[in-house]
């Protein structure tokens, strides 16, 4: 029986979908049975980031309303036998599903997976309530910006007040060490101090994320992607391994490229 993790943030555009796709793929790479669940009804994107958009037949709402069986709606990823996606409905809205139905669905998904990763919509309304209903652990994604951290704080407050998830974990995304160094970006310690929850990992800003999204191939599949490496580390922490935070304070991209050429990859 698996675990249901919800990836949430409050604010949009901080990397929930990217995080869900990459962590799910990384866990599947390690051999775990993973089901990705897109709960962003009306604005689905996880299918595109995973490169599975052309294979959708049924969706989440078809399952919860009984129009098809769960097995028919799950899309198996051809790269990994043990990875599949349950896409959100695109033509409905968030009221097409309720938290009770989500609980039932998550119970069923847990039977056949080690990890169920839910991509939560932005906001704190029905979509958020749906996504958190069946989850037992929350991963809060934020970026080092005032607006994103503020919304993360609000989400953490709601999770702790209204759900069983008292100890959500933090993923700091799109971190730019160079900007931090010159004093133009909130640093890890600032964000940790304000949000006061456990930091699960830091993901550096990385152009390879855009390239990977263009292709529909999660960055964890690319051994040269710094962000991919960060996500692989986070996946290992999720499964309980003690992995030190990767050396984010690198000596610039140039030195890094040289190290990589020499086979001395950092982290």
């Amino acid at each position, binding site marked *: 029986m698996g675990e249901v993790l919800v990836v949430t943030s409050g604010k949009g555009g901080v990397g929930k979908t990217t995080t869900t796709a990459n962590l799910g793929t990384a866990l599947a790479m390690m051999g775990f049975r993973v089901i990705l669940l897109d709960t962003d009804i009306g604005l689905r994107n996880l299918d595109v980031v995973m490169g599975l958009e052309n294979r959708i037949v049924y969706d989440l709402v078809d399952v919860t309303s009984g129009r098809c069986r769960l097995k028919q709606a799950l899309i198996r990823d051809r790269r990994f036998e043990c990875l599949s996606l349950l896409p959100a409905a695109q033509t409905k809205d968030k009221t097409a599903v309720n938290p009770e139905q989500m609980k039932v669905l998550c119970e069923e998904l847990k039977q056949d997976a080690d990890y169920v990763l839910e991509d939560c919509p932005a906001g704190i309304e029905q979509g958020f309530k749906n996504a958190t209903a069946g989850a037992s652990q929350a991963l809060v994604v934020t970026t080092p910006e*005032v607006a994103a*951290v*503020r919304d993360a*704080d609000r989400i953490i407050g709601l999770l702790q007040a209204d759900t069983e998830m008292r100890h959500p974990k933090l993923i700091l995304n799109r971190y730019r060490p160079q900007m*931090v160094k*010159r*004093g133009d*970006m909130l640093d890890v310690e600032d964000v940790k101090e*304000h949000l006061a929850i456990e930091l699960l990992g830091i993901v550096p800003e990385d152009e390879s994320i855009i390239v990977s999204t263009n292709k529909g191939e999660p960055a964890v599949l690319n051994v040269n992607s710094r962000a991919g490496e960060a996500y692989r580390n986070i996946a290992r922490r999720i499964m309980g391994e003690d992995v030190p935070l990767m050396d984010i304070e690198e000596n610039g991209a140039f030195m890094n490229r040289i190290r990589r050429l020499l086979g001395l990859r950092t982290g």
Partner: protein
Amino acid sequence: MLDLLQRLLGKEAGNSKNVATERLRLVLMHDRMDLTPQMMDSLRRDILKVITDYLEIDETSMEIALHREKGSIALVASIPVVRMKRLPTCV
């Protein structure tokens, strides 16, 4: 050196983080206090009501805000006094 170059080129560098930290601190404090602007307003009115019984004050430059100092939150009010009111002497 890089900083100097950036400054010469007119690029801003090196201080926006402190601004962000301070703004974040204040915005989180307000969010967590759960004091709505309406509540803040009514607090301000009530304080005013009490004080004006004793002092004549300059309402336009009165400032009331929540501040956090070393992990605790303080309500700091700056209320310029124009003059004391003559109180009827007791006894």
